[in-house]
């Protein structure tokens, strides 16, 4: 099969991604997303361009590297912070301090940082490079595992995603595409033959609410879901259950009804309770985490919701 060695922006490749489709999977995370969900647990996936992340705990102090990042910065955005005690008890150290106002995102500091405390939130890659990396995990895929292409929104880098899918399909690997559904129908039509299973998010059934929560309305998302269902796509629907935002009984019920209306195309519905593990990542980017007053939903509520989905004749599970 012909494929193009297209280039892409990705921010991670992870083995043993057990919640990204059937079996043991390795997931490729592409960078950039047209949505900006309030609960997003990977903020570094949102923008297409690379940012500087800063994992302060890894900084050993400017004495060790002799101000490597500070010297590398062309605009003076980095400086020595107030002294703090080193974790290994060796005394006071001055870690780097980043002024996000001044930072232009040139990433020179990330190149200079020896411990990778300062790091670029992703890298340029090609279909071949990604293929060579993920194929190493093939021994774990057994009968039902494989590769998941996720995001950000993988369809936002359509050339790259399409060609990666073709390349993998050619090797007989099971491919999942994890998508928000927010992309032109034509692209789904083109990629459909190469995707074994779509991991498809339905975040809210009310378009105005959807726009408030994610930045875009849901019309395109719902119509694409119907399109895929009608044209032989297999869907695993993912429903984020976010207290106060998506957990109204009426919304969850109409989500279930919508899923049921897609018929046999829906293989599984995953109910994903809100969790806070992404919070730390906002700090690393110097962003503000917006959902400060939301707590994970109660187990009992999740079980009740699960039962409601199952009562719609759907194969549903938690997580």
């Amino acid at each position, binding site marked *: 099969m012909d494929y193009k060695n297209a280039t892409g922006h990705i921010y991670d490749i*992870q083995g*043993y*991604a*057990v919640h990204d489709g059937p079996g043991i999977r390795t997931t490729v995370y592409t960078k950039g997303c047209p949505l900006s969900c309030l609960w997003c647990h990977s903020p570094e996936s949102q923008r297409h361009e690379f940012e500087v992340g800063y994992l302060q705990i890894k900084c050993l102090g400017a004495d060790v590297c002799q101000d490597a990042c500070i010297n590398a910065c062309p605009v003076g955005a980095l400086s020595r912070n107030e002294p703090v005690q080193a974790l290994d008890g060796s005394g006071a150290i001055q870690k780097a301090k980043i002024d996000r106002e001044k930072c232009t995102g040139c990433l020179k500091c990330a190149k200079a940082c*020896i411990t990778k405390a300062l790091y670029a939130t992703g890298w340029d890659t090609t279909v071949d490079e990604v293929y060579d990396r993920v194929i190493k995990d093939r021994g*774990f895929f057994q009968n039902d*595992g494989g590769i998941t292409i996720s995001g950000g929104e993988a369809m936002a880098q359509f050339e790259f995603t399409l060609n990666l899918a073709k390349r993998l399909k050619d090797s007989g690997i099971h491919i999942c595409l994890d998508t928000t559904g927010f992309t032109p129908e034509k692209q789904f039509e083109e990629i459909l033959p190469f995707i074994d299973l779509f991991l498809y998010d339905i975040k809210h059934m009310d378009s105005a609410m959807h726009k408030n929560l994610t930045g875009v309305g849901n019309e395109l998302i719902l119509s694409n879901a119907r399109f895929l269902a009608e044209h032989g796509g297999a869907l695993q629907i993912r429903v984020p259950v976010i207290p106060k935002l998506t957990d109204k009984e009426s919304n969850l019920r109409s989500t279930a009804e919508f899923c049921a209306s897609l018929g046999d195309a829906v293989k599984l519905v995953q109910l994903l309770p809100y969790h806070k593990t992404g919070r730390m990542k906002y700090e690393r980017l110097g962003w503000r985490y917006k959902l400060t007053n939301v707590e994970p939903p109660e187990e009992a509520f999740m079980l009740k919701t699960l039962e409601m989905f199952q009562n719609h004749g759907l194969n549903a599970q938690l997580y």
Partner: protein
Amino acid sequence: MANFDFPISDRIQDLRDKRKRINKDLRLNVERNRILTEYYKTHLHEYPILKRAGYLHDWCSTREINIDDDDIFLGDAGPHTRTVHFDIEQTGAMWFRSNFGDTDERFRAAWQVPGSVWVSDEERKYLLEAADFWEENDIGATARGLFPDEFFAGPMGAFAKFLNGSYPGHFNPNYEKVVLTGFGAVRAQAKEKLAEIKAHTDTDNVRKDIFYRAIVKTCDAIITMSKRYAEGVREKAKTATPERAAELLKMADSCDWIMENPARNFWEGCQAILFYQNLLTAEGVHWADSPALIDSYLGPLVENDIATGALTLQEAQDYADAFLLQIGNQIIMFPKPNNDQLIEAHANGKTLYDLQGGGQNIAAGSLITLGGQKRDGTGDYTLATELFLLAYYRMRVAEPSLALRVNKHTPPRIWELGIAVSKRCGGFPQFNNDDVIIPQQLERGVSLEDARRYGVFGCVEPAISGMEWSMASNCGAFGGGIGMLQTLQTVIHGNRDPQSGMERPGDAKKLYEYETFDELKEEFVRLAKAGLDNMARMNHFAAFVFETEWPAPSVSAMTEGCMDSGKDVTWGGAKYNATGTMTNAIGVVADSLYTIKKLCFDDKTLSARELYDALADNWEGKELLRQRILNELSFYGNDNDEVDELATWVTDFWLGYTNTLSGPNHGHVNMGILDLAWVAGGKRTWATPDGRKNGEPLSPSADPRQDVVKNGPLSYVKSVAKLPWIKARCGGAINIRMDANSVRGDEATAKVQELIQSFFDMGGIQFCFTVADTEIMRAAQKNPQDYQDLIVRIAGFSAYFTHLAFDDQENYIAKYEIAV
């Protein structure tokens, strides 16, 4: 699991609670050592194996028959439940003199602290006197009487002098024969053999005559003990409630029958195992005697009990629970703590129990193996497999360890149960791969039928159940003898140990004196071969010590081969023989070799002299270089072929060469990959080229270093899978910690199974995982009383997290976690 979803019955819960109480009130098994000492003192010139059997007979006939009011099963090798065993004939006088002979005040602060341990003044006095006798009569004295001088001068000098810690044991005793045949038939066979010899006595069979007489005496001994228990429970029945009396009388009837005859039901089978365990412990305080395949021969018994209505499933589960608690009551004092350690422990609110196994609670090194294959190659999983797996799930105990053999016949339900147990009881079971271990046995000359009946003992070591006598060699990495890391340090630093400053004689190059990396590898191989050859030589002599004065008739009576050949196991009577030893720190060794190769020889971005100097100074003033090494190199555990090839090279050589060495009794020397104390081992190890500082922890067993895994769990597992496991005849450990989120739900269970199967398809030998969130472990550090049940996998065994020393807890938390 609907069929087995029984509540834990009150009496089982009470037994479990009692055990926890006793952990805080331990007594030493002085009784065993008193009976032994008195027998040996009065039979100085009796032939060694007759002396051993004679002592056993005295022990069985005169020991206190301990029966508790709530006993479901009977027997403990000491006069109290959960007595702490030790063997005075191995301990030597020195330990008693320095600890029991200490000032009264310090003795009391160490050994008379209610809530920790209690040794009475009378016991103290007796043991001190006994130690005087043993000084010139113990196992160390036998060793000193026959070892060549070179042993005492070499690096293993202290070991050679006392043969310390070189316990016999480390094997899978023939519990199957105890249950299915009994000692009556063995005694009859011995008597027949004696009659034959009497008719044709010649030079060759005098020792056989002695052997068979020892066997008759041993059989008499254990049968006597069983009948004494029968009397004891009958006596108890007189004052019991009618319901309990009926139960006790049934037990009495069984005790009159078992040991002499084959077990007739599940209870009798379990009880026969327990009595035999007591006998083995009394004989030689055999460390790590491990009952294998118990589900194979107890299965038909319990299935029959259910079919005939003799037991309900709930009752059968109660028995499995009670059996597990009872067999785990065996505690062997190892290592023996000194007064300073005990006094310090008491000051920190800890007890003797906390100090066992170096603070890691390994009790007796015992391990139960379940599942596997029948001799014809079909799967061997029974109702008992399920009952015992569930017993671990329900009782949540950290001892004995548990192994589950898996193969293409393993039923889905057994996989499901095994993983469910593992999620709850960290690292129990370890999963063992039949597809590697059986071929391994064939390679060392075991027949296919026998190979299918392997068990696992101690931590991870495979052996043929009931047919093999295997002795642990302490001349390997643990004993301070020869190890991969020590050898590498010699290659780098020459003959001077940089941490201790000790110089060894002879010429040895330093890191900056090698012209090529191949030359460095050659030197490594030369040094390693010399060390391993010496280890093999010492093994032969160590085994000869036991052959000369310390035979094991209670083992020989049951072990396949001994009764036919008329030879004790220590004389080579067993069908198969092996000596096992371990190497460790694969991660540190491979990463260090890779650093040297890549930076000093391939890329030439760092001179060997500069690296040598940085190491000599423990990286002082070289932090930038150290960080470069830690951050820029992709080490073992990341599926990087460049470094994994070195890991494979060094392991392949080490295991392969050891496999060619000769072991005692024409057996093999088996090498495995295991470390029990990589934190303590790290403290004794100077800085290494991989960026590790002096004193920092080593990488555990075959696992990568905790802080260098960057590419996630699949890469981790794949790096480990590349090692030549087929050659690791003494087994090996891989232990992954998973967070609770990644194993939640049935689907995740299926994925764990796929992960294990993938690793096994790639040639992995053993796999275990622990589920514990960092958050939970932090909470357990703060409020240990609320987390007494939290079990984590250490290496070849599991431990309660709250019993670990603080250093080990920290290291465990730092260990790589699969976060999804």
